[in-house]
């Protein structure tokens, strides 16, 4: 349903996303995981035809986002970061406007609005002005907006932001229920959210995809393997391929600052000696070589640390980002 091939987006000198490639099958839910500013929103804006890609192609349901934007727009429901609501309208009027804009006829429109109001628990605020609603309600109105025309593809930019723990559970439940009939991409910087609702996780950092797998396999893969971290001063371009030539090396993940790599090998297979010899003999400037034991969160933090080391004002470390979420999980 969604097919993204080698998409790059540059703003002047700044590269927001770099050769991003992934696809989502029909009925699949994919999480786009990454710290703030990693390129999640840019990717979503390209998929919704709001931004043109600098290079590469994005297709939804077989239609190219650049060449047939109207066909694409008809098939997507999009919830941007900020719920796109008109404060001077009531919830009912707003959803009616959205439905009309997307070409629903009046009979189906009323039924569709009733369905979404029911599904998102908007009944009590249905006839109130959106400007007077709380953040959580606005977020749900934003979701209702994306769903009202029952699109086959849903693109949700941080759908649970601003909701209380109970609502978060409900929205996740809703997204899970959409799987099967809808293809969903949701972005988040909250790890448990990705594991809770998604069949597949794409981890993006500094505009590049650094890992892609199912949440189970991702953590299983990490549990069942030895990991070592290698930091090189002068990594050559084909370093990942060279590492993979070492017997026992299964995966090479690039990421981290200053030429950091994460090598995975079969359980009980110590590759440190071989890696060290290769790096030293090739003159790559080996400055660090150490074994690591990891959870999924560790991997996420490690893969995305490059981003944080560049320093983003007003943003906590990945760890503090995760904590409130954890509490939300346990308290409900």
């Amino acid at each position, binding site marked *: 349903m969604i097919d993204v091939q080698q998409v790059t987006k540059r703003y002047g000198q700044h590269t927001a996303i770099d050769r991003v490639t992934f696809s989502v099958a029909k009925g699949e839910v994919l999480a786009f995981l990454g710290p703030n500013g990693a390129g999640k929103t840019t990717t979503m*804006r390209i998929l*919704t*035809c*709001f*931004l*043109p890609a600098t290079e590469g192609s994005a297709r939804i349901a077989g239609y190219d986002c650049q060449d047939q934007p*109207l066909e694409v*727009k*008809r098939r*997507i429901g*999009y919830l*941007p*970061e*900020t719920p*796109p*609501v*008109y*404060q*001077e*309208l009531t919830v009912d*009027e707003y959803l009616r*406007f*959205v439905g*009309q*804009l*997307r*070409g629903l006829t*009046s009979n189906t429109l009323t039924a569709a609005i009733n369905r979404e109001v029911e599904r998102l628990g908007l009944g009590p605020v249905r006839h109130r002005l959106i400007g007077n609603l709380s953040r959580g309600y606005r977020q749900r109105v934003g979701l209702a*907006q994306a769903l009202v025309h029952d699109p086959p593809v849903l693109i949700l930019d941080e759908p649970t932001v601003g909701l209380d723990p109970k609502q978060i559970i409900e929205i996740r439940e809703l997204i899970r229920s959409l799987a099967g009939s809808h293809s969903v991409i949701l972005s988040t910087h909250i790890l448990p959210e990705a594991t809770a609702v998604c069949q597949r996780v794409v981890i993006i950092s500094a505009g590049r995809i650094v890992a892609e797998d199912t949440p189970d396999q991702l953590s299983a893969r990490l549990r069942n393997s030895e990991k070592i971290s290698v930091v090189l001063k002068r990594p050559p371009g084909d370093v990942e391929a060279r590492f993979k030539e070492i017997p026992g090396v299964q995966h090479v993940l690039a990421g981290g600052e200053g030429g950091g790599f994460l090598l995975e090998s079969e359980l009980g297979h110590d590759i440190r000696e071989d890696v060290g010899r290769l790096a030293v003999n090739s003159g790559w400037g080996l400055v660090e070589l150490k074994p690591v034991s990891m959870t999924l969160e560790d991997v996420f933090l490690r893969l995305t640390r490059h981003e944080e080391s560049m320093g983003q004002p007003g943003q906590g470390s990945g760890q503090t980002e995760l904590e409130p979420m954890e509490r939300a999980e346990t308290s409900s």
Partner: protein
Amino acid sequence: MTPIGAIVAKELRSYFVSPVVYVVGAVFLLIVGLLAYLYIVFAGAQAIQLMQIQGGQAQINLNDLIFRNLFASVRFVLLIILPILTMRLFAEERKLRTFEFLMTSPAGLNEIVAGKFVSVFLVFLGLLAWTSLIPLTLSLFSDFDWHPVLTGYLGLALLGALFLSVGLLASALTENQIVAAFVSFGLLLLLWLLAGMGSLLGDTTAGQIISYVSFMEHYDHLVRGLVDTKDLVYFATAIILLLFLTHRVVDSTRWR
């Protein structure tokens, strides 16, 4: 309902739940009413003077004394108030982040620009309709030629549409409503001053071109009762060109 219809209905709703239309409308009607009153009193004084000089039944021309002056003044009132009506159209969408939603909906950009223009034009026509009370009331007590009054109203409608499309373009240029309003004031005053520059250059080719670009002489023809295709073409092309520019500007904001 078509996407244009949906946008027009939504914009009209937004206009009438905000106080802006009521305040702008009240000020507009108050000023136009006061101007009409002043010109009527002035015409009355002239009539008395004429009677004293000529004695008996002096004929005064109400079209010249009242309506031509009134139509000339309303032009200026429109220049002040119409940018206030148009300033929110795109600037607010961008400020409140609904712009992205609108651009990712299956409504084409043509339909969005047209819908916004039609909605604000309808609001303006609504305001203009109230001013028809002036000639209607006057017709109960006096005789005048309706023809130049009606063509004057056609001129006002076209002039208003032109001002609104300038305002729409200005609103597309920025996400700050105040800036949008000032940019449209500036552009409209510039168009106004072009007429002065044109007459300064006189009958030269440059002078004629500059005069043609300004709305002044085209509007004056209509106020004087002359419906010339040349003037109608001027308004139509200017409005279409401005809406086209708006379309391009809105489209380009996605790229920046």
